């Protein structure tokens, strides 16, 4: 077996094969250790793959002995190579964190099922990212979505509202997937192919109603998956009631993958040859900006911190859409940069909240009072991640928000300039809702109420995982150059400015 030649398929196959095996492991620590090892191995594979792509350019991999247009092909360029590395990095950090957290939240006998679902979700997300086949995207999207519904529902052990949240998520996710697959069907009808590159080539010049309808269905379906503004309603409850580690994992990966797929369809499958792309981009601009404000305002009033952060995620997706909607290399690069950085900050924030949930049993704002004294590592990690989310200089969030701003102003014209100012304004809203939490954390310990008793500090593993994420925020805030170069190149390859060759 030629390791390098088989490399593109391994990150999918590994968790995919590992998932059923996990189900057979005895309940307890074993599934967790297994899942963690698999995540680490996958992370290593993704890094090697990213390096290969960076050096050699886009990699294609044909499956089942059928070459590209006919069979299923995997195709990895810098964009999905990067998203792949991001997902597996988040998994590699969150899976170890999940151990102590899950022990508290999930029934002991359910652990094999939990980690199986987690690995399947992970494998699905990686599959969505890695594949170059449009229908394969749907299949993997469903694999990850179905396991996600299960994982969210497993939060019922702590809060029964997780069941309704999971159910709503299931219905909405299925609607989204259905729309997506209807769109694919229409595309297949128009072109007779499902391979993305092939689709693009055959779609050129086809400006008919079928293609338009396909586009509308795909955009709506994916919009649901990535929680674009009016279609975001499933996200806050799902994130709030899911187990802590699942929230951290999903917030950092699921919507990001959906954003990636949206990018892929916009720029690779449809591309600039379509006159309606600009309409779609305006659509995203409006919805992105609306998302930034509606969700930020909603976050301002939430007393449930997980809910607040979930709304904040919706707002952050607005930023990414805004970047994408600019339609320039700078804009897309900024959107990608924010995608990566937002994964770091949200994962860190939700992990911090998970520590609090573990020790205080609540993610209400009142549980955070005096946290800086009670759990200093968690609290300060959270403060730094919050600073990153608000876009304070020196953190990753600043870099990507700055890149977004720059892209908006560089685009020129009235609308992008206004959008640029709106980014600043909405960042101020982020400061407001994050300040609420930070202020409460810095207050003295509560003297009455349910959160007066002293607590043990969170397990070392959870704190270490949290701080790995926090340090990622700081590192990419201070040394963002490499990541910026990566996203810029990825964006230019994606948009066809660069042919995707080796540098």
């Amino acid at each position, binding site marked *: 077996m030629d390791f390098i030649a088989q490399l593109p398929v391994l990150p999918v196959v590994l968790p995919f094969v590992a998932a059923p095996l996990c189900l057979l492991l005895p309940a307890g620590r074993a599934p967790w250790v297994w899942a963690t090892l698999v995540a680490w191995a996958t992370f290593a594979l993704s890094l090697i793959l990213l390096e290969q792509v960076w050096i050699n350019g886009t990699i294609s991999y044909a499956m089942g002995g059928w070459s590209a247009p006919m069979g299923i092909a995997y195709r990895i360029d810098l964009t999905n190579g990067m998203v792949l590395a991001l997902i597996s990095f988040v998994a590699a950090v969150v899976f170890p964190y999940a151990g102590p957290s899950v022990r508290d939240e999930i029934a002991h006998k359910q652990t094999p099922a939990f980690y199986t679902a987690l690995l399947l979700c992970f494998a699905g997300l990686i599959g969505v990212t890695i594949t170059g086949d449009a229908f394969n995207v749907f299949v993997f999207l469903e694999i990850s979505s179905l396991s996600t519904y299960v994982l969210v529902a497993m939060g019922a052990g702590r809060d029964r509202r997780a069941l309704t949240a999971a159910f709503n998520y299931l219905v909405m996710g299925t609607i989204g997937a259905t729309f997506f697959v209807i769109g694919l069907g229409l595309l297949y009808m128009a072109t007779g192919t499902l391979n993305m590159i092939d689709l693009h080539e055959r779609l050129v010049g086809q400006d008919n109603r079928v293609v338009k309808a396909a586009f509308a269905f795909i955009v709506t379906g994916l919009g649901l998956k990535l929680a674009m503004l009016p279609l975001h309603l499933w996200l806050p409850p799902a994130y709030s009631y899911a187990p802590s580690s699942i929230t951290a994992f999903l917030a950092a990966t699921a919507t990001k993958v959906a954003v990636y797929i949206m990018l892929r369809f916009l720029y690779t499958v449809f591309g600039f040859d379509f006159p309606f792309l*600009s309409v779609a981009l305006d659509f995203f601009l409006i919805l992105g900006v609306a998302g930034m404000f509606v969700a930020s305002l909603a976050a301002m009033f939430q*007393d449930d911190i997980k809910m607040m952060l979930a709304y904040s995620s919706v707002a952050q997706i607005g930023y990414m859409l805004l970047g994408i909607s600019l339609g320039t290399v700078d804009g897309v690069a900024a959107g990608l940069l924010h995608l990566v950085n937002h994964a770091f900050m949200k994962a860190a924030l939700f992990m911090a909240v998970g520590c609090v949930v573990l020790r205080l049993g609540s993610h209400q704002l009142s549980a955070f009072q005096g946290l800086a004294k009670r759990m200093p590592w968690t609290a300060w990690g959270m403060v730094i991640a919050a600073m990153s989310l608000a876009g304070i200089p020196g953190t990753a969030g600043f870099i990507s928000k700055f890149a977004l701003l720059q892209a908006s102003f560089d685009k020129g014209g009235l609308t992008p300039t206004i959008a640029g100012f709106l980014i600043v304004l909405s960042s101020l809203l982020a400061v407001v809702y994050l300040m609420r939490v930070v202020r409460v954390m810095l207050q003295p310990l509560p003297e009455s109420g349910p959160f007066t008793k002293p607590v043990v500090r969170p397990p070392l593993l959870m704190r270490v995982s949290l701080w790995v994420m926090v340090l990622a925020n700081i590192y990419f805030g201070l040394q963002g150059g490499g990541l910026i170069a990566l996203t810029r190149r990825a964006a230019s390859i994606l948009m066809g400015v660069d042919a995707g060759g080796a540098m």
Partner: protein
Amino acid sequence: MLELSDNPGVILLLGAFIIIALPTIMRRPAMLLITGFSAMRLMGMEVGDQTVLSLFGLDLTPMKFDVLSRLFLIVFHIAVTLNIIYSWGVKNATECWASLAYPAAAMGGVLAGDWITLFIWWELAALTSVFLVWQPRTRETYLAGMRYMVIQIASGVLLLGGIVILFRQSGALAIGALDLRDPSGLFNPAALMLFIAIGVKSAFPLLHNWVQDSYPKSTLGGTIILSVFTTKLAVYLMARVFAGTPELIWIGAVMTIFPIFFALIENDLRKVLSYSINNQVGFMLTGIGFGTAASMNGAVGYAFSNIIFESLLFMSVGAAMYRTGTSKATELGGLYRTMPLTLMFCLIGALSISAFPGFAGFVTKGLILDGAAEGHNFIIWLILLFASAGVLEHAGIKIPYFTFFAHDSGKRPKEAPPMMLIAMGLSAVLSVGIGLYPEPLFNLLPYQEQIADYHPYSAYHIVEQLQLLLFAVLAFALLIKFKLYPPEVPSTNLDFDWLYRVPGRALLFKIVSLIVSLWRWLWGGAQEVVTRVMARTHRTHGPEGTLARNWPVGFMALWTAVVLAVALVFLYWVA
């Protein structure tokens, strides 16, 4: 090439910070040593030395030593030294610090060869000197200091504005002669701004009140230090930049006249001397305004000697105040009995400032009058003669007469302390020395060819001057004899500063209260708006609000359909 360590500004400024760290007993000797060291470095400098520095693409000349700066640096050193000796008993850290730092700033300014450097020293001078005004630490001096600082900073702002415009005009930053007007006769805005900035510091008429407002309120030594530097730095700059500016002649002439009347009716003798500063600077500015070799020599030479005898007068009044606690004419008088030495020094100062032959004022003042005469400017010449009579009145007669003679106040204070006497003695020796043997001073003047032909002790000059002064004294004697000389009465005399201290102040407070109420209105309104907006936002975005509550799944599905419909409509009919 001058080193940074040659700059007396730097030496004294560093010294100022060193001495506050020293034990109090060592402060004054250390100050003397530092000034001595600085003076020694000054000796080593050659005319024409300069330091050139390129910073941020600007060519700066932080130090430029020429004939003019040499003269001012020498006399500034003398003034600092005299004050250190005079205030020997004052060990207070702030005052010691300020009485080195403030002269340091002025000296740095004198040595500056470009506008940027000057601006820095200029502002530093303002900031360090205000501590001397504040030093008595009363509410009155606090307010006076604030007024003083506002005016000084305003002048700095004007200076900076002028510098910026000048730089935009010419691209050069070197300090050199400027024409106030363009060839077309219009004012050059840069030059005008610089002119007014320097004018504020030289206390132009109507811009002069800060001198009388703040100087007399300082400590004894503080007043002396203050009286020397700011105005003389301004004179130096006028000589550098605006020599031969006709406007300056008239401004100077007015400056020589109006303080005479205010000094006449002023009861506080230190305030009288503050008016005298205005009057004296007026002479110098007039000389600079003529811009001829003679008048320029006269102006800067007069500045040199004036610093010494003006200080001497301040010192003697200060000594009286030190012993009696007051400087008011109505509360002094008859002190000649117990303070004969102070009286003697005071008289020497008075004779010097009145320009009696044989004293310092005489040898240089004539040059300024010659400038007017050479220009055939009869009116100015008469004004200057008139002002000379006025100087005699308020500085030459009023100061010693009301301090030491007049009606007997009954106070029998001790003679001034020895260090004060030494300082006064040194000043007196210098005043007489310059008067009798002016050549060393003449050698420092900028126009050597002219001064070589000048002989102050020509017979007619002596006769003229004696006629003027002796008959003025005669008039005084007769006025006293026939009880026509107005008695001193305790009063506050309104001057131009009334405008900003009473109606201006009231207006300011009115405006401030208006702004405050406007702000309250705006802020209150804004708060109300914010509260209302927040309430409304909470209604829509709060946990139970339309945009944030948990919707039933059917509703979400409906939304999906709506989005799809909108997308289709857009794609079909808009795109």
